[in-house]
């Protein structure tokens, strides 16, 4: 691991992001090694491909309800601006764009941005991909109706600063979605030994258990950032059939949620 960190060269921009608290260089190096595999549904990111429909469904249903849209139409998100933070290879950006949203995907790894761009050209989807951090978007006064933070918060250096920056880019009446891992004895066992290793959910070492976040913690941090959490839903994995499902009563390991920006 140490040798990888030494080999990793920081660019000016990422250096800035690191200093401002959003990107942990060790975390970045780990993802860089995986970037090429983003789009292989049977590859290393298979679990992400598997869990993706569940996330999109959660986002689609709650966004449709909040903005009063027809979730069964093919372009329910027409006119909505979506920001996907830590977009990776574009696994979430592409569905959002197909649902009609105007999508911006940001990632601090230029390799991910390149992969995402190449792929969206092949699928004929117009998506703005930028190698940028949330701080940069804040400084540009950018605003979005929907912000997606899927599997991001447990990787950032300073979650308070990070979510505060996110909240600053959510428009009036806009929503912020997140998914992350709870810090419980069960998640310690499952996510580190079980889910990450045995179930090969993500390559071992991707997550650092101490950085996992309890639902109450994220709710409080978001509250300080003027975002009121509206829902928290557990995401459970059934090792027998390999399927993920939403489970409102089990937030012990994976969970997702969303909040609405305060009216000012």
């Amino acid at each position: 691991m140490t040798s990888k960190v030494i080999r990793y060269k920081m660019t000016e921009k990422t250096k800035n992001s690191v200093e401002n608290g959003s990107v942990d260089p060790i975390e970045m190096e780990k993802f860089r090694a995986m970037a090429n595999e983003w789009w292989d549904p049977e590859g290393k990111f298979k679990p992400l491909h598997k869990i993706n429909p569940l996330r999109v469904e959660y986002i689609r249903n709650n966004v449709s309800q909040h903005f009063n849209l027809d979730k069964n139409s093919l372009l329910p998100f027409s006119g909505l601006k979506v920001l996907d933070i830590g977009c990776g290879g574009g696994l979430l950006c592409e569905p959002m764009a197909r649902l009609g949203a105007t999508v911006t995907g940001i990632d601090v790894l230029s390799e991910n941005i390149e992969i995402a761009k190449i792929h969206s050209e092949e699928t004929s989807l117009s998506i703005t991909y930028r190698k940028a951090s949330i701080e940069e978007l804040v400084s540009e006064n950018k605003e979005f109706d929907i912000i997606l933070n899927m599997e991001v918060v447990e990787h950032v250096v300073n979650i308070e600063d990070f979510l505060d920056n996110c909240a600053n880019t959510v428009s009036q009446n806009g929503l912020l979605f997140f998914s992350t891992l709870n810090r419980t004895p069960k998640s310690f066992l499952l996510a580190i030994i079980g889910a990450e290793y045995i179930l090969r959910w993500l390559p071992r070492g991707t997550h650092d258990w101490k950085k996992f976040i309890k639902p109450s913690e994220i709710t409080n941090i978001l509250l300080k950032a003027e975002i009121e959490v509206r829902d928290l839903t557990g995401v459970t994995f059934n090792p027998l059939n390999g399927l993920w499902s939403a489970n409102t009563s089990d937030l012990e390991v994976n969970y997702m949620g969303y909040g609405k920006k305060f009216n000012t």
Partner: protein
Amino acid sequence: MLNNSLDKNMESAEVCIVGGGLIGLTLALALSSTGLEVAIVERVDLQDTISSEFDGRATAISNGSAQVIKGIGLWNLVSDQLSPINDIRVSDKNSLFFLHYDHTEVGNEPLGYIIENRLLRLSLLKKIKEQNRISLLAPAKITEINKSPNKVQLKLADGRKIKSQLLLACDGKNSSLRESTGIPVTSWNYNQSSIVFSVFHEISHDNLAHELFLPGGPFAILPMVDLNGRHRSAVVWTDSKSLIPSLLALKEEEFISELYKRFGDFLGKLEIVGSKWTYPLSLLHAQRYIDHRFALVGDAAHSIHPIAGQGLNMGIRDIAALSEVIVDARRLGADIGLSETLSAYERWRRFDNLVLAVVTDTINKLFSNDIPPVRTARRFGLGTINEVAPLRRALMRHAMGTMGELPRLIRGESL
């Protein structure tokens, strides 16, 4: 959102259907009803396919299929052309009506409907012309198919190109797309052909369908709607292949007297309406239904013996299942051509179709002969079925197309 292409000859659609037969047209309507953009490529001029000389068949539509017809908004266009089937009487040479299905046993709906293929096609085309999300390219000859990881592109002889995410082969039993994709089939010929035509008759059919098992093959009488105030039925006369040319060579009176021998006189005097068509019969089942951004639908995937009037109904169930998995994926913003979506379709349909192919094949083998022990066995068998009401109801529901885990369209829900 799809980018507009700069190439003037390039059309893009989310789904490209090859084959504008009953299945291709119905599938296009089902998909476009959800908002998807569809292109249909058909090799013949579709105007020719609605002439009265093109297809003389009348098809038995199950209740499940009728739900799909409602679901795609076609019901109003076809309802007065549908002739309900209230009862099906099955018999063989020696025993009249040894098996009899009565619709009051499974609720008050009819068991199904008879519709002329030509009229169904006419309504489908009319509805398609009203749809701006369907582009119909016909007549058109495909010269090249290019599949890449994220799309499929067709080239036509006139220089046009069609780019899509998913290619659906509805090009019938002799599907050239299936062949060029290298999908193997299980198939054999029945040494039988069906002569198809319709007759006027004096006495009303009372919406009863009849199927007689004769040694040469099944002989079906299907109730049609009256024409110009005259009672009418469709006949599907299946006989051994070698006999067909001599039957067709008969003079009209001789043919009619052969017809009476089979049909009987219970509907009074018979008169043949228009032409006769002949269809050679064979069984064909594709060993897989899917490939990279590609799926087989309808007869391209399976063609069976018409003994149970199920061929089109199977294809309509394919349509209901496939359009459901496609739209569900699309509503989650997914790429609709991914193998996971297509596998769900294959899992849903292939086994069911295989069962029907085997069942129809077995029934035909059991009945299309004159061997006494077999005759006894089958009468015993069907007699038993008649005795056991739950089993009969189950068989009947299958014939009506309402068994198993059903797609939303078949259940009468919207996509």
